[in-house]
């Protein structure tokens, strides 16, 4: 394992401190927690927006804190959901009376810990609601199992719910746009290599030199198929088609596209992939309203990418376009 770290068991705290040190004017690190929160002007009365999850997905989630997006982010251990007490601290820190909305990715751990935090907060009289993001079409959407995972599409939920909260939307209104976003966002990823959890010290899985894995999760959870590495065009086709197969598109409908790098894949490759994705959408008469290419939801230094499509209507477009000061999603 080669990493720029100090103690493998201290990476999250060191990181949280390093993030706070980077943005002292806009961020504060809540003492004795792994919570980063926005420094808000006194008298703010907006709905508080909290997200978080295991670490190792940077810039998710702390990079999305800022005017127009999140109010706080909770960092768990690497690839491990944060604990309820930590989430509870975040909720308390951002509650201004209008209630707090939680954006949760659909993993058992995240759901359990955030739910318990919400219970703790409600017991103290704080209004809390949440949405569970499950955009990963690599996994079957079943009510008999854990269901689909939440991956890069979560960033669109942050953006849109954040814009609504910033605009003064009520807790119910924020929830309603967040649910609309979840209903309309789909993603799928692939990997060429695994990341290494610092405390584990070795890669989460092994792929041969000529292999790739389609449908991989952002924690290295196995995908749909392991097979010979294909060209960028073929990968674009496979991911895009799987995403499109999962959601109905009428010709002429508009989408936002996110081409997300999983950590070690150079931007060059993401743009090469994007070229083909755009071509495929154009062929299918799906109009691209806006494209985001970069690292939005990573998996440590995994090499690979994901493709996310978000079907837009007028309301979602407006919220997607709203200003954001979050360092990782400035608009």
């Amino acid at each position: 394992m080669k990493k720029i770290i100090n103690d493998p068991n201290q990476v999250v705290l060191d990181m949280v401190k390093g993030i706070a040190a980077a943005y002292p004017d806009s961020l504060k690190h809540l003492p004795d927690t792994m919570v980063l929160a926005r420094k808000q002007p006194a008298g703010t009365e907006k709905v508080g927006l909290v997200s978080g999850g295991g670490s190792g997905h940077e810039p998710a989630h702390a990079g999305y804190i800022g005017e127009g997006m999140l109010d706080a982010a909770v960092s768990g251990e690497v690839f491990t959901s944060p604990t309820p007490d930590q989430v509870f601290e975040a909720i308390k820190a951002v509650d201004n009376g209008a209630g707090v909305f939680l954006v949760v990715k659909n993993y058992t751990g995240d759901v359990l810990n955030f739910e318990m935090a919400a219970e703790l907060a409600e017991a103290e009289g704080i209004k809390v609601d949440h949405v569970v993001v499950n955009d990963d079409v690599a996994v079957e959407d079943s009510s008999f199992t854990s269901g689909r995972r939440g991956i890069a599409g979560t960033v669109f939920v942050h953006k849109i719910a954040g814009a609504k909260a910033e605009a003064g939307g009520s807790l119910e209104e924020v929830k309603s746009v967040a649910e609309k976003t979840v209903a309309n966002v789909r993603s799928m990823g692939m990997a060429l290599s695994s990341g290494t959890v610092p405390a584990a010290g070795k890669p989460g899985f092994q792929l041969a030199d000529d292999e790739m894995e389609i449908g991989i999760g952002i924690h290295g959870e196995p995908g749909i198929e392991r097979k010979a590495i294909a060209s960028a065009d073929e990968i674009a086709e496979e991911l895009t088609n799987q995403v499109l197969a999962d959601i109905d598109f009428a010709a002429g409908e508009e989408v936002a596209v996110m081409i997300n790098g999983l950590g070690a894949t150079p931007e060059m490759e993401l743009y090469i992939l994007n070229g083909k994705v755009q071509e495929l959408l154009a062929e299918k008469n799906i109009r691209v309203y806006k494209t985001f290419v970069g690292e939005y939801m990573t998996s440590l230094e995994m090499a690979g990418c994901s493709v996310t499509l978000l079907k837009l209507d007028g309301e979602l477009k407006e919220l997607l376009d709203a200003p954001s000061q979050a360092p990782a999603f400035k608009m």
Partner: protein
Amino acid sequence: MELQPQEIKQWLLQANQLFQENKDYLTSLDQAIGDGDHGINMARGFQEVKNKIEPAEYTNVSDVLKDTAMTLMSKVGGASGPLFGTAFLKLSTSLKGVDNADFQHFADGISAAAEGLKQRGKAEQGEKTMIDVWLPMAEFLQSQSEFSGEEIESKAKSAMEATKDMSAKKGRAAYLGDRSVGHLDPGSVSSYYLFSTLAEIIKKGV
């Protein structure tokens, strides 16, 4: 026999030792069908449990178990943190009011824990989760009238081993569906460690 606060403490301290020793093994189980942090999570959590309960003096079993529950809840995270936290919290609540745990009280506590796990995890038996150790164990204890280290050990072991052939429906392994067959469920192995150290304590106490 009755389990005294000091024995419950010993149980958890020995379990901690097992989690430290088997950290890499548990992590490798989780790498196969999950995200590869289960050993790290349990080792971290039980180290904190040790730090919390070792120096403390307890006059009743419920308090040791409550401290354990709260520590796991706030130090583990992931799926196993709230789940093991819930299990120990239910066990603690169930034993409230007595200093020592007699067999039936303890058996009822394990039943409450297993029920709590099902609710928290929204899971049923047979879905390849830790529930597949806790529920058979609860049922087995309810069919007994006295602690037996040997039988607890063997029951826990066979329940744990039975997860190997299951196809996961809950937790991260569910993403693999039938490809999870052939792998032990990491959380069930951890649960087995808990019951096997309990069995040792019982054997010593008898």
